[in-house]
């Protein structure tokens, strides 16, 4: 386990030194949150909370997917192959990668929530803040698995493109940027079953102090299973060739 943590430390360092990651992965959700809640005379406090959850989810989604881009990059550099001839086992490598993604989603989540609390005046009980952070953190796991699945399955270039596509699609359909009510009914229907919608809905409910909806929990667990299987299948396929 110590070895896995060494690997996580190395990978986290690499990620946080990536200017692109810091600007787009952390700065972008914060900037969008500030813009969408303060433009045109400002928003009501309900939208400030909902958008905070949405943008934090958006940031976590982007950071988690970027972990997959890292996998694809390492594959093309021959680094995954190099790791295979160290005593580190393939399982340790995958677990290390997933843990890294879980670490690097935190700055975006925390930055957006901090801006919400300190600048936009979102007020919640301490336990609510804590539960929301935990929920967003856990809720980013399906995205991590999706990103890792893409990274093992695709080339570095296609992983980048596919990840951007997943990022935009899930963000918009999940209502992370604009409230779902602005969309036509059939898009809202699809949106209900997206993992991003499930996470933001659960977060918003907790932010309001309400019990989370059962459907959202089921949807999120369903995606966890789907993307988890996808990651395992992709990894097995890559292990034979990479």
């Amino acid at each position, binding site marked *: 386990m110590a070895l896995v943590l060494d*690997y996580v430390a190395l990978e986290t360092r*690499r990620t946080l030194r*990536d200017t692109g990651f810091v600007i787009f992965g952390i700065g972008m959700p914060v900037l969008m949150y500030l813009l969408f809640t303060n433009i045109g005379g400002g928003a009501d406090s309900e939208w400030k909370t909902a958008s905070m959850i949405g943008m934090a989810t958006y940031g976590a989604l982007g950071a988690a997917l970027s972990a997959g881009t890292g996998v694809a*990059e390492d594959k093309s550099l021959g680094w995954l192959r190099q790791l*295979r001839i*160290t005593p580190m086992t393939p399982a340790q490598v995958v677990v290390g990668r997933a843990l890294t993604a879980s670490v690097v989603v935190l700055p975006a989540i925390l930055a957006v929530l901090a801006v919400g609390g300190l600048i936009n005046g979102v007020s919640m009980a301490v336990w609510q803040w804590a539960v929301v952070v935990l929920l967003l953190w856990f809720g980013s796991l399906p995205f991590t698995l999706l990103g890792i699945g893409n990274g093992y399955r695709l080339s570095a270039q296609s992983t980048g493109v596919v990840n951007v596509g997943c990022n935009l699609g899930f963000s918009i359909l999940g209502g992370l940027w604009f409230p779902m009510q602005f969309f036509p009914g059939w898009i809202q229907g699809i949106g209900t079953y997206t993992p991003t919608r499930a996470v933001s809905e659960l977060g918003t409910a907790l932010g309001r102090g309400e019990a989370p909806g059962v459907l959202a929990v089921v949807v999120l667990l369903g995606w966890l299973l789907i993307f988890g299987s996808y990651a395992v299948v992709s990894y097995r396929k890559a292990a034979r060739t990479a």
Partner: protein
Amino acid sequence: MTKTTPPGPAVRFDAATKAFGAVRAVDGLDLELKPGQTTALLGRNGAGKSTTIGLLLGLDQPDTGSVRLFGGAPARAVQAGRVGAMLQDGRPIPRVTVRELVGFVAKTYPRAMPLDEALDLAGIGEFGARRADRLSGGQIQRVRFAIALVGDPDLVVLDEPTAALDVEARRALWDSMRRFAARGKTVLFSTHYLTEADENASRIVVIDRGRIVADGSGDQLRRAAGGNLVSFDLAGRPSEGLSLLPGVTEVEIRGDRARLRTDDSDATVVALAQRNAVRGLEVAPATLEDAFLRLTDPDARPAAARMEENV
């Protein structure tokens, strides 16, 4: 573990084959490497060197036959930290320093050498704080060499370590390799540079079309290639009958100069002296290049072997 090297071979291939589609990349390979030996795997591009190394490291499984490292499966030797390798075409991951990168690999091995020792051995002690991906080609190869040796493994495998390096960087890398081998390590490297194999390995295994076509020291290979080359000026004399001289196996006339390949250069020279033909005489050993070209010449192969391939 350091001094109690087991008596068995470090590496053992038994009739190993590996095909990719219709191409038999490794075609019935038998090979045994003794601990502490430095061996060159010499062959043209596409001869099967990298596939052989992939099998050896357990990155690929042989279709038939077996590959053993230190008496066990390659994966077991890798897990035990007894193997280090520098693969072909690998590049260092971005945004980490040399120390961070090599230091991380050291942590994956149970008996790694001190980081500074590894960096010094690879000749990159002064680059420790630099970002690995921003170094020059030669420096990057040395970083990759440091990655291969930092775990203090018993066996180090280098797949074309000097490809695309300039002369100076190449020499520096071989110096490092020899210093590491001098610690009693088993080293296997692949190359398509004959002089590199000759200068840095005590044993050269020539591989072609996935098979071993020659195995021995550089001198043994040269001898096997057909002795020496005797050349002299014809000075306007006819060249007839030269092929009948003792020892001569091949005659080549270039302008006014005759070049005789001979199994017995002494007898050939004596015969030439008797014919009073000694003008600008030169006797040179066949080069390793001659040996290599003959061993891997498609036209020089036995017909049976070629037919078998076409089936």
